[in-house]
């Protein structure tokens, strides 16, 4: 009744091609953003920011990056954590080595470092694909794990192996309190999500999807595999690297390579699968799901009066993740995003379905 586009006529190509062609979607999005920017900072507690909102935003950004590579371009990657690490350590090096480096420039440069390495590790994708490539990306993961632990130069010769940043500010505004951190992450994520959405619905995105669906056929109809694959690796690594920088600088403050271990890579892959392969919206759903599930598993039994040990909670979490991944692959390969769009389809007809 409320969600119906009857009478919304498009009279120009511009109007027909906008991101959200339905008025209700636009209104809902503006309302959501207003809520996120204005209401949430007033309502949420400090714990809520630190434990849920900030990780959710940053991991969403990383999931968008990974989704571009896996969901849109079909190049499976098990080394996302590595690119996050490169983004974080790259940004760190620019930040501490250059006097007066602005935070945003450092983060972007971290993203650029990740892009360069991402393209390097993407080069094998021209020759090998699918399962073989998945293992090749693991090489990136193990190599960076080792490099950031053993090569002192990357950590600015810190004796403990961990690095830390402080005194963050953007254009003179400090980024210290959880609210400020949240707003900063939210801004970055909104900009990046918009960029990603526009990329995937343009000709670059179509080239990626053609590669994903059948690369040989795509090459035959004139899509250059080199451009399509390497641009997917570049864009994906940039977003992932940026997210890595945010994770280190804004969320953790001080970190060591273990923050970007192979578990992080798998976690991000699960976000993409559960959220929805090939969907920007799905990246947010997946991130929300995976950030919330462990909290849920830890809290609910205690609330019901059946406290469980930490170890058991961790094992339960692994089991539930595993079962859910299989479940989603079987029942809904397009993840939560597909459920969302099904719900919207139903709403269009409600209350008079055919």
């Amino acid at each position, binding site marked *: 009744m409320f969600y119906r586009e009857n009478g919304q006529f498009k009279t120009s190509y511009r109007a027909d091609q906008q991101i959200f062609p339905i008025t209700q979607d636009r209104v809902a999005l503006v309302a959501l953003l207003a809520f996120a920017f204005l209401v949430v900072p007033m309502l949420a507690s400090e714990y809520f920011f630190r434990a849920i909102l900030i990780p959710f935003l940053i991991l969403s950004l990383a999931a968008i990056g990974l989704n571009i590579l896996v969901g849109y371009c079909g190049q499976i990657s098990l080394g996302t954590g590595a690119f996050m690490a490169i983004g974080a350590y790259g940004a760190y090096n620019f930040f501490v080595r250059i006097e007066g480096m602005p935070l945003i420039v450092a983060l972007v440069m971290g993203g650029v470092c990740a892009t360069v390495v991402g393209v390097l590790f993407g080069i094998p994708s021209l020759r090998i694909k699918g399962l*073989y490539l998945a293992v090749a990306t693991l090489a990136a993961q193990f190599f960076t794990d*080792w490099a950031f632990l053993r090569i002192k130069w990357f950590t600015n010769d810190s004796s403990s192996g961990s690095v830390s940043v402080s005194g963050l500010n953007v254009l003179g505004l400090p980024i210290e309190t959880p609210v400020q951190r949240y707003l900063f992450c939210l801004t970055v994520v909104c900009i990046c999500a918009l960029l990603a959405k526009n990329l995937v619905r343009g000709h670059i995105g179509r080239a990626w999807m053609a590669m994903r669906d059948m690369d040989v056929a795509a090459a035959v109809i004139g899509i250059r595999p080199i451009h399509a694959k390497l641009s997917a690796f570049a864009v994906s690594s940039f977003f992932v690297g940026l997210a890595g920088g945010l994770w280190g600088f804004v969320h953790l403050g001080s970190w060591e390579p273990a923050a970007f271990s192979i578990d992080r890579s798998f976690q991000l892959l699960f976000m993409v699968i559960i959220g929805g392969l090939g969907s920007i919206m799905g990246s947010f759903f997946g991130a929300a799901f995976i950030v919330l599930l462990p909290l849920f598993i830890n809290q609910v039994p205690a609330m019901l009066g059946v406290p469980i040990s930490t170890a058991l909670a961790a094992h339960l979490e692994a089991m539930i993740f595993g079962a859910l991944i299989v479940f989603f692959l079987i029942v809904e390969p397009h993840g939560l995003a597909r459920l969302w769009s099904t719900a919207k389809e139903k709403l269009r007809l409600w209350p008079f379905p055919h």
Partner: protein
Amino acid sequence: MGFFLETLFGGLMAGMLYALVALGFVLIFKASGVFNFAQGAMVLFAALAMARFAEWVPAWLGLESKLVANLLGFGLAMVCMVGVAWVIERFVLGKLVNQEGITLLMATLGITYFLDGFGQTVFGSDIYKIDIGMPKDPLFILESTFEGGILLSQEDLIAALIAAALVATLALFFQYTATGRALRAVADDHQAAQSIGIPLSRIWVIVWSVAGFAALVAGMIWGSKLGVQFSLSQVALKALPVVILGGLTSVPGAIIGGLIIGVGEKLSEVYIGPMLGGGIEIWFAYVLALGFLLVRPQGLFGEKIIDRV
């Protein structure tokens, strides 16, 4: 020279164990086209089951003999692995027939997590011992040729022999039994095999059970060397470059790949490691495999990949 040979032998024997885990991958990939990321979790699960059953069962029955306990543990663990194979076929693979390789790979990632969590919930997550009575003393050979001789670990030697025996058994099984023939037929062409009356689902259960058996043997050997604990599932990450190097579809490839990776890893750690700051074992195998893939994308013995539109 003596030191070099010692490193070489050490590498060969470690490589044999990698090959054992890699074998599980290859078996499953050959017969069902699934890149089974869960092989490492299966190794952990099998080893946990064996360690715990070998401890529990004698306590229930009041048995004393260690041999009987180990045999019982092994047998019950094998029953568990067949159960796992059946569950995987019934609830995962059977529902994902005809999906793309990437989907199946991700499904096995899910299985990995589930098995890790499940195994540790049921069997506990401490460090457990598997004591199959392997001699721990080092062995010195060729003492007349080199000063001080070459140090060999008897444990590694026996492990390598067990692994070699397993590989030979599997090769014979595939070559000469009716089931083995059916497995090879399925590997060549699912549809053709099905149309001449080979039941796919039963074949898959058998393949996963055989892979479970390989996992159990690997888990038993690694477990008796290092103790059974979560890090065991990481061994599979070592086996991945092995399969890639050897070619996904080749049993000899898994073995030769394992030996190459084992030797390369040990030699690089000893001779190149100090220059780079040590610990390069972690990534050396991957970089080696990656470099090799650039030259020969299908691996050493893999089938040539042909794309058709």
